[in-house]
């Protein structure tokens, strides 16, 4: 297991370098230029040249990349091109916890609701409750998050005035974004839980457990859910990834100062240092999620060994 972990950790180095290179090249070869975007209608070649020089953008691409990697190794990600008084490391430190907190809450909600609904659907298979949950799953999967967000804002914030439209800082600011981010994950965690539980319910050991007189809830929690958990855990991992990606919409709509909104702005403004660093953070996050899912397999299923 330790060897496996070391191997996975070592694998992350070429992965990061490759990702950094791809992001770097894509960013620099895309049309547009941070200096001109920044100056906009106040463009002036001399000012632009001075800014370009100060930012080091007049150096050859290869040198810019090597300098970036060299600094990044020491966790110095430089300053934002768009706002030179702002260090990229500080941007990540300030915004990442907000996005992670949001994602964690959404996944927690999705896992709790999804597993509960999935179980309910499996044990009521074919009956009205099951049908109703299935319809809910279908709509949860088909309605995009920006539509859900708009409808929830309309109903809960503008019509009933129960929650703020957007903003950040107070506990009630979390409610709508978390619900929107959890929407789709609830749907597929429900679906996976339902099919996984339904399959386990047909196993012999479930019949044995029942026949030895165990009460239904005990059978369900101790024997069924545990054996049905493997695919569900994978889905929860995916849900976390999904919540991070979904933040690109949710943070913009709800005006949340998280890392996804930073990423969107940085891309539109060609803020190379910020784009590169944020994308490296995302690479690290997804690598970590995958690793966590793999490790949880071994934990949940003794037959899996690395």
């Amino acid at each position, binding site marked *: 297991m330790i060897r496996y972990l070391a191997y996975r950790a070592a694998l992350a180095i070429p992965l990061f370098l490759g990702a950094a290179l791809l992001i770097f090249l894509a960013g620099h070869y*895309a*049309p*547009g*230029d*941070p200096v*001109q*975007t920044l*100056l*906009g*209608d*106040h*463009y*002036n*070649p001399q*000012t632009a040249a*001075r800014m370009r020089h100060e930012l080091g953008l007049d150096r050859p691409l290869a040198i810019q990349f090597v300098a970036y990697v060299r600094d990044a190794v020491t966790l110095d990600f430089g300053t934002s091109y*768009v*706002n*030179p*008084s*702002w260090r990229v490391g500080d*941007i990540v430190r*300030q*915004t990442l*916890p907000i996005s*992670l*907190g949001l994602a*964690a*809450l959404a*996944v*927690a909600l999705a*896992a*709790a609701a999804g597993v509960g609904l999935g179980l309910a659907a499996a044990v009521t298979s074919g009956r009205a409750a099951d049908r109703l949950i299935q319809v809910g799953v279908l709509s949860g999967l088909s309605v995009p998050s920006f539509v859900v967000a708009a409808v929830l804002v309309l109903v809960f914030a*503008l019509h009933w*005035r129960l929650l*703020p*439209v*957007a*903003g*950040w*800082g*107070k*506990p009630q600011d979390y409610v709508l974004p978390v619900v929107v981010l959890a929407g789709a994950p609830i749907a597929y965690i429900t679906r996976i839980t339902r099919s996984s539980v339904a399959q386990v319910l047909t196993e012999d050991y479930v019949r044995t457990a029942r026949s030895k007189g165990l009460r239904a809830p005990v059978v369900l*929690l101790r024997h069924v*859910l*545990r054996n049905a*958990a493997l695919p*569900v855990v994978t889905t*929860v991992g995916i849900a976390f990834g999904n919540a991070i990606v979904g933040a690109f919409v949710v943070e*913009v*709509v*709800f*005006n949340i*100062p998280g890392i996804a*909104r*930073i990423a969107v*702005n940085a891309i*539109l403004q060609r803020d190379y240092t910020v784009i590169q660093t944020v994308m490296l953070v995302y690479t690290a996050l997804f690598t970590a999620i995958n690793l966590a899912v793999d490790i*949880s397999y071994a934990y*949940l299923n003794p037959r899996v060994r690395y």
Partner: protein
Amino acid sequence: MAQRTLASILAVALVAVIAAGWPSASAVGQVAGTFRTPLGGEPATLDPYFSVDSSSGPLTALMYTTLVAFDSGGRLVPAGARSWDISPNGLIYTFHLRDNVKFHGGRKVTAADWKWSFERMGDPTLKALVADVVLSGVTGYDAYQKGAAEIAGLKVVDPQTLQLVLNPSHRGGFLNRLAYYAAVVLDKDVVEKGGKGWFGTRDAGSGPFIFKEWVHNSRITLAGDPNFAQGPPKISRLELPIVTEASTQLSEYVSGQLDLVQVPLADFQRIKADPVLSKELFVAPRAQILFLGLNARVYEAFKDARVRRAIAMAIDRAKIAQTVFFGFYRPANSIVPPGIPGFYADYKGLPYDPAQAKKLLEEAGVAGKLPPLRIAMNPFTPIAQMAGEPIVAMLRANLGLDAQLEKTEFSNFIASLNKRTVYQSFLTGWSADYLDYSDYLDLLLDSRSVLDRVNYNNPEFDKLIDQANAAPTESRRIEIYHKAEALAVQDAQFVPLFFSQFAMLKKPYVQGLETTPMLSGWLPFTRVSVQK
């Protein structure tokens, strides 16, 4: 075990949330004395000499002092200077400073501070974006650019008297340029001690509001300065949350989280029809034009003025203004918009005349032979596209020209525009930075300007601009400018389309708001009060 997994997921989630921390809650709801209006984006800088975007520009106006300013009626009024004298030959301006202007650090503002500030602005190694506008009219500015120790025409007579000697060939619109929101005095101590990012934690200003807090990407908070020279503001706290989406700004206003917002054009009619919101809606003048640029350097046929004029005359501006912009935008016959002193109100421009337009193409020998024309649109707002679609249809119907709209994202659009050799034609706008004719004609059409993005190059026009800048009186100057403007309209490389307006929503409890045709449309909130 599954329960344990679930429990650990929940635990991780909780820890993450606690790690993220609930940021300290800001003021909930509206409190007396607090005024809330959004910024459209994170300001790139708060150094006034580089603050030219729509987020940082208004902040400069709130925290800093200019020598003179425009009031909401477009008249020049005293600001940092209480009065000024002009020598008989019109070349020496003597400003008598108010003696109660203090920097937010407490030090009194003197003429030496103004000299230091303007010399910092003109520092050739700093390359401040606003220097040419403010200082090119002062003698010695050119020499200072080439290494002279000081700007010779900038003189400290005594601590309360500042004298500016004008450059005779570039005297035009001098006071209008001094009223530029960026032409402010800075506290030398703050700038020099603060290093490169000095503006990140405090301001160097003497304006009505003091910098309090900048939570990056989230909000900026200012406080009213009780010592402000022209009387303390009536609001004690100014909250400026950064809200990038116009629709989110609007929703936050409707739900009571904001007190003043701009209305996106697409929502204007809905709001006008809304029984509650229509009472809070108001329209204010705006110095902004939407235009079509025709670039002869890329589209060969545009080298012939008749072809360009034909394009201009095939577009029914009045109809588009009425149907697409529901009369909120008005057809533009001239280039410089209303709100700029000297606006050429009675100029008729090129009429909509499709038959004449066709004839012009025939005379030029290109009728039915023009290659497809691509029109690039500024993607910053949907407005260019709203105007572009009917224009394309009219060019097809009236001239048989295969015109197509081209959409790209903003960074690419600006870079291509600045290259001046990429777009055949483009749809974009220009908003006033300062209220003067030169912000349009000198900047956008003089062949020596880097922002002459349509590549207009008419020596006669350039000569008129020089004459205007050297004109002895403001009225003579405007006469010459009107000549130049008419020439440019007839040459039709810069085809004026529409003049826009501001539409804003303001809560009924907000009193005393004054508007300006520049920037975000409001003057610093010195007279604004919040009565709840």
